[in-house]
């Protein structure tokens, strides 16, 4: 929740996260280079570094890509999501180190400009085994660069979360390019089955986790999707009050969008399920200190108005709500973000 866009807000969790990340990378690179030098005494330092950085970047990208579905499947993975963008930026930095060394090693020592050489030295686009795989890596690097450079909340706020999300969804294009980069590149010559097996396992885990969590979402949406309007034709019966745990929400799909129905202190309030920050699922969060708290990075909103408590300025749409005979009725038309709505009282309506 940033009012001004200073440097990234560093808090304790982020520091721990980054420390673990940095130690993991140092450990990985030293193991890779140490073992590599031991097992292949003939390998040069440049080759070991190129391979170490490349595989490290690809490993990080796999982690980045499975965090999302893992969190949908089990909330215990949420801490991983908290600082996922640092993982992403680190992926870019590792990829850059790999690419920089590769360009130096394979393209800088001739008389052609290294970047021209990168793009023109192999143009056999119609042959799979000779495919210009380095251009594929370059394409992926450009995407990772765009993402890393727009990762700050400044860009998020200025592009708006949906546009930013769309931009950042091109990570899947980068991933596809990299799978091709490695399959058509090093795997064409590397006969050790370990690398192919590792890549296959990574690919299988990314795809299967996404398919599993995606099909769950589709099912959840179709269960919670409501279209039966009450007599007045304005309010939709979304659930019973008893189905919602105290200080928690139930997520329902109204007119195609998800909304979060929160129960707290004998009251019901309904907000958009979509956090203003990075579109996290507000309905999976809790009410903490009287505020709806996003499970992803902890942005907070007042449940009755959908506005962040001052001095913060984020706001989400709210919905009119009433309780009748123990049922929660919601008007599916969203109100402008930050509009205060009187919460529905549960006890006053309990008798019906």
């Amino acid at each position: 929740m940033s009012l001004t866009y200073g440097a990234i807000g560093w808090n304790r969790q982020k520091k721990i996260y980054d420390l673990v990340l940095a130690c993991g990378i140092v450990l990985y690179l030293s193991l890779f280079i140490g073992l590599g030098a031991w097992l292949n005494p003939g390998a040069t330092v440049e080759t070991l570094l190129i391979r170490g950085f490349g595989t490290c970047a690809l490993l990080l990208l796999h982690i980045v890509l499975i965090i999302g579905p893992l969190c949908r499947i089990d909330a215990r993975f949420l801490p991983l999501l908290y600082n996922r963008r640092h993982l992403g930026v680190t992926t870019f930095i590792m990829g850059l180190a790999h690419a920089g060394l590769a360009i130096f090693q394979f393209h800088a020592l001739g008389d052609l400009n290294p970047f021209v050489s990168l793009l023109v030295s192999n143009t056999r686009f119609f042959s799979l085994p000779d495919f210009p795989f380095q251009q594929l890596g370059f394409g992926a690097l450009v995407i990772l660069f765009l993402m890393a450079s727009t990762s700050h909340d400044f860009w998020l706020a200025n592009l708006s979360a949906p546009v930013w999300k769309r931009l950042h969804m091109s990570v899947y294009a980068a991933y596809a390019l990299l799978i091709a980069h490695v399959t058509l590149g090093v795997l064409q010559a590397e006969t050790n089955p370990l690398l192919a097996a590792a890549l296959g396992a990574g690919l299988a885990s990314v795809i299967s986790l996404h398919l599993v969590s995606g099909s769950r979402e589709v099912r959840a949406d179709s269960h919670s999707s409501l279209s039966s309007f009450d007599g007045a034709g304005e309010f939709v019966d979304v659930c019973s009050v008893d189905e919602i745990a105290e200080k928690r929400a139930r997520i329902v799909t109204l007119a195609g969008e998800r909304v979060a129905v929160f129960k707290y202190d004998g009251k019901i309030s309904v907000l958009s399920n979509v956090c203003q920050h990075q579109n996290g699922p507000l309905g999976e969060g809790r009410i903490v200190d009287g505020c709806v708290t996003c499970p992803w990075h902890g942005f907070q909103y007042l449940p009755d108005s959908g506005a962040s408590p001052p001095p913060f300025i984020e706001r989400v749409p709210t919905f009119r709500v009433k309780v009748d005979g123990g049922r929660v009725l919601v008007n599916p038309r969203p109100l402008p973000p930050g509009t205060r709505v009187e919460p529905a009282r549960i006890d006053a309506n309990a008798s019906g």
Partner: protein
Amino acid sequence: MISSLRRHHRQAFLVLAVVLPLIFAAGLLVRRSAPVAEAPPVKLPTASDRSGLVAWDEAGLRLGSGADYLDVVPTGAAGFPDILLYWSPGSPEADTPGSQAILLGPIDGVRAQRFPLPDFAREFDGYLIAWSLAHRRAVAVRAWPKGGLR
């Protein structure tokens, strides 16, 4: 995420779930079988062959010669992949082929090879130099008096 984004995400992912395994499988299927260097077994010289040969130690080679040829027989796997053999006039202090050197040919290190000697080698004292192209250094140098070994 808002629902339109979720839909795009889902569609994009379904495409990837089909395309990526295809790329991966196709990539593995088109792999060319790795070319294995067909190393003809080093036919180590028999005792009788060896009688006429002199060792040229550092290069792991033995040399023999006739009137106008030079035999090079490897005694084991050569430590260098790219040895070029030169004859050069002059004295063997030099550790490069020198401007007057004559290339006899590449030593492949796995077979006995016979190189024709240039006429000059019969008329002048000179030296043989085995030169590693990649390492840019002499692997071995030895004097080659005119008329060859005898």
